[in-house]
Structures are given as structure tokens and as C-alpha cells.
């Protein structure tokens, strides 16, 4: 009997939850705010779906009832991707060790 591909995706999903669990517990508490902003940025990989949606209309028509939602979603996700990664970078650049001056 053949296994439904859904089961494979479900396996990836479940295993990723466990990976996430252990990885996130190892994040130092002082970096919890950057953690939130970076998870925000990466969850915007949903832009992949938005691009497919935007390019979904049939030949010639750029803006159809379904692709318009795709275009809107692209903008929203793009705000998040650029905003999320850049603000994370800005924050992380501020974390400095004690200078050994004395």
C-alpha cells in the first residue's frame, strides 16, 4: 500500500516542532526580543504562497480576483521580511561585551 504524501509532510511538521522546542529553549533569555522579531521575519516565508497566488491568473490578465489577494499578501509579507530581518540586525548589533579597558 502506498503512503499518502500528507503523512510525510506531517512527519516533517511534527519533527520540526521538536527541533523548534529544543532550539528555542537554548536561546538565551536576553535575546528573547530578537527571537520574536526573527521568527516574525521567517514566518513571512508565506510570501512563497503569495507569489504563487499572484502569478495564478490565466494568460494575459494580471489582476484577477484571486491574484489581487496574492499581490496584497506579497506586500504584507515583504514588509515583515525586510522589517523583521533588519530590525533584528539592528538589535543584535547593539549587544556588546564589556570592554576590557581598565
Amino acid at each position, binding site marked *: 500500500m502506498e503512503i499518502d504524501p500528507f503523512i510525510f509532510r506531517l512527519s516533517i511538521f511534527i519533527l520540526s516542532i521538536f527541533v523548534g522546542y529544543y532550539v528555542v529553549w537554548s536561546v538565551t533569555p536576553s535575546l528573547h526580543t530578537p527571537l*520574536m522579531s526573527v521568527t516574525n521575519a521567517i514566518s513571512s516565508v508565506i510570501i512563497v504562497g503569495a507569489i*504563487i497566488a499572484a502569478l495564478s491568473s490565466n494568460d494575459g490578465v494580471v489582476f484577477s480576483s484571486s491574484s489581487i489577494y496574492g499581490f496584497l499578501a506579497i506586500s504584507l509579507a515583504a514588509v515583515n521580511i525586510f522589517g523583521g530581518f533588519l530590525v533584528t540586525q539592528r538589535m543584535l548589533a547593539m549587544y556588546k561585551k564589556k570592554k576590557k579597558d581598565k
Partner: protein
Amino acid sequence: MSANLSAILYLVSGVLFILALRGLSSPETSRQGNFFGIIGMVIAISVTFLSAGNFTTGFVYVLIFLAFGGALGAFIAYRIPMTAMPELVAGFHSLVGLAAVFVAISAFINPQAFNLGTPGNIKLASLIEMSIGAAVGAITFSGSVIAFLKLQGIMSGAPITFKGQHLLNALILVSIVILTFYLCSSQSSKLFWILIAVSFLIGFLIIIPIGGADMPVVISMLNSYSGWAAAGIGFTLENTALIITGALVGSSGAILSYIMCKGMNRSFFNVILGGFGGGEQTTSNQNKEQRPVKSGNADDAAFLMKNASSVIIVPGYGMAVAQAQHALREMVDTLKKNDIKVSYAIHPVAGRMPGHMNVLLAEANVPYDEVFELEEINNDFANADVAFVIGANDVTNPVAKTDPQSPIYGMPVLDVEKCKSVLFVKRSLSPGYAGIDNDLFYKENTLMLFADAKKMTEDITKNL
């Protein structure tokens, strides 16, 4: 591009996202981690472009919308003050949620484009996944908008409660399940729109009864939701990168909510059901008499600190409100010049989001190895000469250890009262968020400094 190759590349970007989170285990590796995240995103987007393979006018518009959103995001990222980080994150969550809703709508209208069947005849599994993605996305969106408004102060931070609230919410949640069921059997687009509308409504209703200082839990929870929404869409699109990311973000947000709840010694449901910090909790201080308080000025504070050999600083949300972090660091610099040992103690729920205080201190150039978490530093209070409490309140309240009647009993608190002397910067004697009096105000060794946090800190520096 072949389907297998793109699937592998999506997997690669998923792995890079895992490494991005892994990097955050220490500040040294974190910048590299962020870089991995960016590469992962670039790969995911490029692969999608290449496998779409139709470089027509539509493609140009995709780039235009992408550039527009990207420019806006970059602009916000550079302009936002660090004190506004909780609002920013809440705002960003709402965008992920809404994007998930839009993608689900598009897939529902035009399922052929996603290989999910034809309109009115969408594969059952896809329809379920789509509904989950859309519903969770909608809840994330409206919930985050409310959280944003509360954090921004546009909406009052006070919990909004009414009779039958929990019953109403429960009914709506049940109706979402029923709607999804009927949607799957009828494929009716009307039901799909109703499902989305009802999900928007419940997101709104869930967040309004939750008070301002519980926002760390709310933001983490919405963070988690945005992940589950992404995962739901990932299943619909059969996209590994989305599934992995959704799971990562979902569990990350869940862990953060757990840490925050534990920091308040409250169950997740207690926070989510809301109403905390309203008028109801005042019972414990009904028989309160006027107790004597010692108050001082900047001069007294400077004198105490000058004669100390070690000082522990306890920052809280009030420091963020007063934007006092830079003034604080200047004060600490002066102290250090006098060979006084200074460290910072951060309570897990200080501020309005996880790690909020750490970011503000980092912004003020405080080295991160001088900043300690509750468990790391709590034993040091007994050996320290001065505790300087700036903008924190409930997290220092000894009542949490002594009075089982108190609503915050059992909450882990900083043992500030064990210091030889405590300087407490606060504008008035008013109780904190939990609505209870802080016993620390009336202790023999506490000196209250009634002033704006920033102004007081600057004055102390002048007097040092």
C-alpha cells in the same frame, strides 16, 4: 526547475531558518544566525520565482509589490525606537496573519493554480488545511491589532470585560469548528467568508479582556499563532519551507508564553481568560492603614550609592516609559568610575515583551555580561549594598513570598528587600499593575524617590 530540486531547496531554506534560531543561543553567534535566516529567505523566494517560470507582466508586478512592501519594512525597521519594539512586533504579527488569510482566500478562489482541484471541488484535505490557515491567520490578525492598539496606548490597557464573555467566546469557537465542517461538505464560498469573518471577531474578543502588563504573554501567544497559520498554509501548498518554519515559530511562541506565565506564576488560561489587574483584586488591601514611608531626594540617593561597594539595578517597564535607559547608563558609568560594582537584575516579565529590558539596556550600550536573569542574581541581593529599582514594582513585592492571600502569591520575585538599602524610583505610591500595595515601600531600609525616572537618574548623576 524540477519539482524535486525545488523541494530540496525549500528544505535547505527550512534548515537555514533552524540555524537562524540556533544562532540566538548567544549574542556572539546571533548575527551570523540572522544572516542564515536572510539567505534562507532569499533561497525560498528565488526558488518560487524560478519554478513559477512565467516571466510575464505579472512577474513585474510581483517585483513592484515586493519592492513596495520591502521599502516600507526597511523604513520602519530603521526608524523605530527600541522602546516601541513590543508594538512593532505586534504589528508585524498582524501582517503575517493577514497574509495567511489572503493566500488562503486566493487558493480558495483559484485552486487550480495550487493544484488543489477546481472551484467547488477542492480536495478535502486541502480545504481543511486552508480553513485552519485562514481561521488562525484571521485570529492572529485581529488579535495582534488589538494588542498593538493597547501597547501603543490608542486603546486603554485596562481589561475590557462584560457578562457572558467567556460563554460567547466558547460559542464562537464551537461555531468555527461547525463552520469548517459544513464548509468541507458543501464547498460553499459563503461559508468560507463567514468563517473568516467569525475568526476575525474571535481574535478581537480574545484579546480585549487581557490587561496591559499581560502583554508579554499575549505577544508570545500571537507569535505562536502566526506560526501555526503559516504551517496550515504550508500544508495547503505542500511546501516544506513553510511547514518547517510554521512549526518552529509555533513552538517558539508557545515556549515564550510558557516562560512568561511561569514568571508570573499564573496558568496560561488564567492569563488568556483575562480580567487580571482590574478592580476585582483590591480585596487584599481593604484594611490598609496609612503606613509611614521614607522619602528622599537625589542628593540622599547619591550619598547612599557613593558609599556603597556594590549596586544592583532593577529596571522595569517604567524605565521604558520614561526613556531613562541612557540616563541610567550614565549614572552607572559615574558609579563605576568610583570603583563601585554595578550589575543589572532582570525579571522575566519586566517590560511589555520577553527580553524587552535587555534590548533597551543594550541600546544604551550596557554590556550584556553585566545583565543577569532572576535566578542568576537573586542570591546576590543579600550581599549588595544598594538596590536601585527603576520603573519596576510588582516584580519586587515581597508579599509574593509572604502572603498567601495576595493575587501575586507564589510569583518569583527579586529579593530586593535583602539589600542593605533600597532606592525605589517611582512617581507616586500608587499600586502596580496587579492592583496591590508593595510592602517594599514601607520597609525600614527603603528610600522612596518620588520623581520621573529619567529626571531622578540625571539628578543623581549630577550629585555623585
